């Protein structure tokens, strides 16, 4: 049963308890100044952002078929069965293709480190398999962030929309985005008004790459036959000449 996170932005009061819990759990510094930074970075894995009266959270979406994991040449990013997309720093060579590939612009880099690593939310991968809630879900005082089974959370989200159709924008962000994600979002207004990109493809992104990559074995086989054949044809004359003893 894959775990997932539901963020109901209509319940968020912008208290930033999720940020604090995250930073403490990951041994990152957290103070007033960092709380003011409304964007994720190597020292802030989730960020609460203010849009007038409304708040939204930015964190890794934990895509079902993540672009970041598909592009990493050394498989340093992996989607786990429990839901989280995890990072194995000892494999990473620092090419930053994961950062370029993520539609949500999630992975960040330790730019000022001499041997930098990629940083991003890992959905508390140490807890998820044990079915314990993430630190942010645990810390949330209003129930805006909840943790659970993805199917159940989708059902819950649908129920909330059905019960209060005036209070919600009709749609769950994360069901289709990038082929589906393990972070689901509810909003009162269209999602782009609270900072979520809406021009995201509705299919898993790795398939765009695969459309080209899958031809590699064929190119190798066909190429060898073709080039070998051309060589044979173009060198025919000389071969004949050699056989007949001509120079």
């Amino acid at each position, binding site marked *: 049963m894959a775990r997932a996170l539901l963020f109901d932005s209509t319940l968020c009061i912008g208290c930033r308890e999720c940020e604090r819990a995250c930073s403490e759990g990951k041994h990152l510094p957290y103070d007033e100044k960092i709380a003011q930074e409304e964007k994720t970075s190597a020292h802030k894995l989730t960020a609460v952002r203010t849009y007038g009266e409304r708040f939204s959270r930015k964190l890794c979406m934990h895509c079902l078929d993540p672009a970041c994991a598909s592009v990493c040449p050394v498989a340093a990013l992996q989607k786990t069965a429990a839901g989280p997309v995890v990072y194995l720093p000892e494999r990473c060579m620092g090419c*930053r293709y994961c950062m370029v590939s993520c539609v949500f612009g999630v992975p960040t880099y330790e730019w000022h480190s001499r041997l930098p690593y990629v940083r991003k939310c890992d959905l508390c991968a140490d807890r998820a398999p044990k079915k314990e809630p993430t630190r942010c879900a645990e810390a949330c005082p209003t129930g805006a962030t909840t943790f659970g089974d993805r199917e159940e959370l989708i059902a819950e989200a649908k129920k909330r929309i059905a019960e209060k159709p005036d209070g919600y924008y009709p749609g769950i962000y994360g069901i289709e985005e990038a082929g589906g994600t393990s972070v689901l979002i509810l909003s009162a207004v269209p999602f782009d008004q609270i900072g979520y990109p809406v021009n995201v493809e509705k299919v898993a992104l790795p398939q765009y790459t695969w459309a080209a990559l899958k031809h590699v074995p064929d190119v190798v086989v066909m190429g060898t036959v073709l080039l070998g054949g051309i060589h044979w044809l173009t060198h025919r004359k000389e071969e004949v000449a050699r056989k007949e003893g001509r120079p």
Partner: protein
Amino acid sequence: MMELARKYFWRALFVVIMAVGAYATFLRFWGGLGASTNLSDQFPWGIWIGFDVLCGVGLAAGGFTLAATVHIFNIRSYRPVVRPAILTAFLGYLLVVVALMYDLGHPYRIWHPIIMWNPRSVMFEVGWCVTLYTTVLFLEFLPVVLEKLKWRTALKVMKAVTLPIIIAGVILSTLHQSSLGSLFLIMPNRLHPLWWTPLLPVLFFLSAVATGLAMTIFESWHSSKAFGRQLEYGLVCRMTRVLAVLTAVYLTMRFLDLSHRGALASLNQPGIERWMFGLEIVLMAVPMLMFFREKTRQHPLAVYLGVVMWLLGFVTNRMNVSVTGLERSAGVHYFPKWSEIAVTLAIIAAGFAIFRLAAHYLPVFEEEHEEEKALPAGPGRVPTLEEVRVQGD
């Protein structure tokens, strides 16, 4: 007097570039990427990837283009330029690896893809192809060294395995030249529609083949100047013809694709993109038109200028794909920091210097000793570059 001044000017310039490059190198490895680049979480790839790697690999495409022309298609007249092309390619790839070491956060882990696999990753495939192909280039260039050393037996062995090596080289090149385009397939929404297309791998491959030719012409010009060699001007003319045709095919495919995807409409949107797109197209289309004209082809300087323009067009294309086309969606403007430029210049300068040294000490511009000695002299002979230049002036 002028000659001497010129010589010292280039040497001084070289020293300055290397010194600044050394300082930038220190900054990079001591202070990290943050201190030495203008990269950010919003814009993680800069000119070290866009120029040094994407353009570097493309500009080194002459190695496989000419190896295929001569050894597979058996078009013998191209023989004189195979070796320089292979040498450039070999050096080019080595320099690309050096550049990559600057860009990687953990350069000493560059070998990781060899044992840590992810076959779904384009970067993984590129890594493998580049590693193997650099080995192939080394083997292709080895006979030149063996000739110099006069190791006949080793030379014989190399001759026997030439064909499989050449075929492997052409296939590996086809794969990674196109895959450099595939790297950007994963961002259909973020790369500007003027550049994102499912055809990226095909377009990258075609333009790389053309660049291989363009670079060969470019080098022929320089080596004939620098080393007083008399390159066959007829051959250069033939290559410009092929270059013109390849460019025509490439541009046609580019525009058909743009119009099928309805991307040409985005030319109405204000912004830097349309100008950079225009620049890229003009820099390729103008030389193409020039090369189609008999008049240009007879004029070495015009040919040279055309080729330089074409190469700039190629570089603009790669930079557009990797930088210009991504700025809007990233929401930031990226311009390289001085140290990024300094490292790039130092790498280019090192490339030029090593090429000159190699060309000076190794039989790069000579034919293989045994078989076919150059083209027959006499009435049927095509004029050399020097002769044509004299006539043209």
